[in-house]
């Protein structure tokens, strides 16, 4: 994958330094981030979110013409840390009240997490896709989702070596299913790539990064930040739990909408798979993984709910933004996706 197009002075400066360490000026970058702090919303800040996304991607597959050693360049990590502080603080601030209310709910941890996911108020992209989205809007939805689904479950996999006992076994069981249960054609990221190809879209990893808005990057960056920091492991698993627990019912609507529009079968089939798979995964995720991790103590319990809240909150932010664009006849992408669905 090529480095994305810069979205402002921060990413322009950072990408120059990622390509050539001689051109890296971390003090300048750190100062630029600090100047952003007052009055900026990091969740919708294109320049900041793109920088974070690129720095995290160094830990996955890296970029063409970028030295693999950049992954552990201490100066790049220092810049990343400043960006992450800004991002994490804002996520905690935005979710503080819902987290406290969810923790104070009735029942065991799994019951409270299910209740939290079911009661979280968010507009529904799934309902929109099921009932009224156009072919172009569904393509835009697939493009936005491609940033995560082409590396589906990878951010959660970071947690496995840090777990022990029952929660480790439970997470590995879900991972095996996500990774195709021994059949490469059932690897969920491959099924999503097949869906993109069938719809005439580009399935190459990272292709659409220049087209997705800051909020889509924020969704991915939250998963990457939680996954890469052992300190944030309970949040990573709470996020995973909420993601699984809000997937099965919407997936049925997505599949129905895609069949309404006559999309090629691999597209609805991907979502059919998630109706069934995630009805299993949500039970294992909340009862065996999240409850097990939350039992480690009050801080772990808190961050399990924090991670879940971030998943639900950022989901509602992206849904609100996309639906607002589509209902006003605008594209929800930064520029229209290439290619059209083969309907």
């Amino acid at each position, binding site marked *: 994958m090529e480095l994305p197009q810069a979205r402002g002075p921060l990413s322009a400066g950072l990408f120059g330094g990622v390509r050539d360490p001689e051109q890296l000026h971390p003090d300048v970058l750190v100062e630029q981030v600090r100047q952003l702090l007052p009055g900026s919303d990091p969740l919708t800040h294109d320049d900041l979110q793109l920088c974070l996304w690129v720095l995290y991607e160094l830990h996955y597959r890296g970029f063409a013409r970028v030295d693999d050693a950049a992954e552990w360049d201490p100066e790049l990590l220092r810049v990343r840390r400043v960006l992450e502080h800004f991002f994490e603080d804002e996520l905690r601030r935005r979710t503080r009240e819902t987290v406290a209310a969810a923790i104070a709910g009735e029942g065991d941890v799994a*019951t409270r997490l*299910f209740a939290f996911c*079911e009661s979280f108020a968010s507009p529904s992209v799934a309902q929109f896709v099921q009932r009224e989205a156009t072919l172009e809007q569904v393509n835009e939805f697939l493009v936005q989702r491609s940033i995560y689904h082409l590396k589906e479950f990878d951010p959660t996999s970071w947690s496995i070596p840090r777990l022990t006992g029952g929660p480790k076994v439970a997470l590995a*069981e879900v991972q*095996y*299913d996500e990774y195709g*249960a021994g059949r490469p054609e059932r690897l969920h990221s491959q099924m999503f790539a097949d869906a993109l190809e069938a719809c005439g879209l580009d399935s190459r990893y990272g292709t659409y990064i220049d087209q997705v808005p800051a909020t889509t990057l924020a969704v991915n960056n939250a998963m990457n930040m939680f996954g890469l920091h052992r300190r944030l492991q309970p949040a990573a698993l709470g996020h995973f739990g909420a993601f699984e627990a809000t997937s*099965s*019912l919407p997936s*049925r609507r997505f599949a129905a909408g895609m069949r309404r529009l006559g999309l090629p079968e691999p597209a609805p089939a991907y979502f059919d798979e998630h*109706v*069934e*798979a*995630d*009805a*299993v995964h*949500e*039970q*294992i995720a909340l*009862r065996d993984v999240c409850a097990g991790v939350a039992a480690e103590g009050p801080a772990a319990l808190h961050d399990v709910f924090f991670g879940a809240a971030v998943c639900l909150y950022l989901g509602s932010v992206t849904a609100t933004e996309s639906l607002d664009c589509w209902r006003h006849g605008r594209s929800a992408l930064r520029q229209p996706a290439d290619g059209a669905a083969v309907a």
Partner: protein
Amino acid sequence: MNIDPDFKVSSRNDDVELVPCPDGPVLVRGADTIRDSEGVDHAVTRPVVALCRCGKSSRKPWCDSTHKAIPKD
């Protein structure tokens, strides 16, 4: 266990585990096929499957999370 009596779980070995989830499906590990009330066998294709217990799934015998959309008493 309150598992739907219409479903029969079969396996080549005896090591089948059934885990009922409160207000949810029953998880089944180690099964090869699930036979429904019409005698139709459904192959188990994933390491663990969830069987519908609310009777409202559109993908029976598999759970599709519809139980969450049913108001609890």
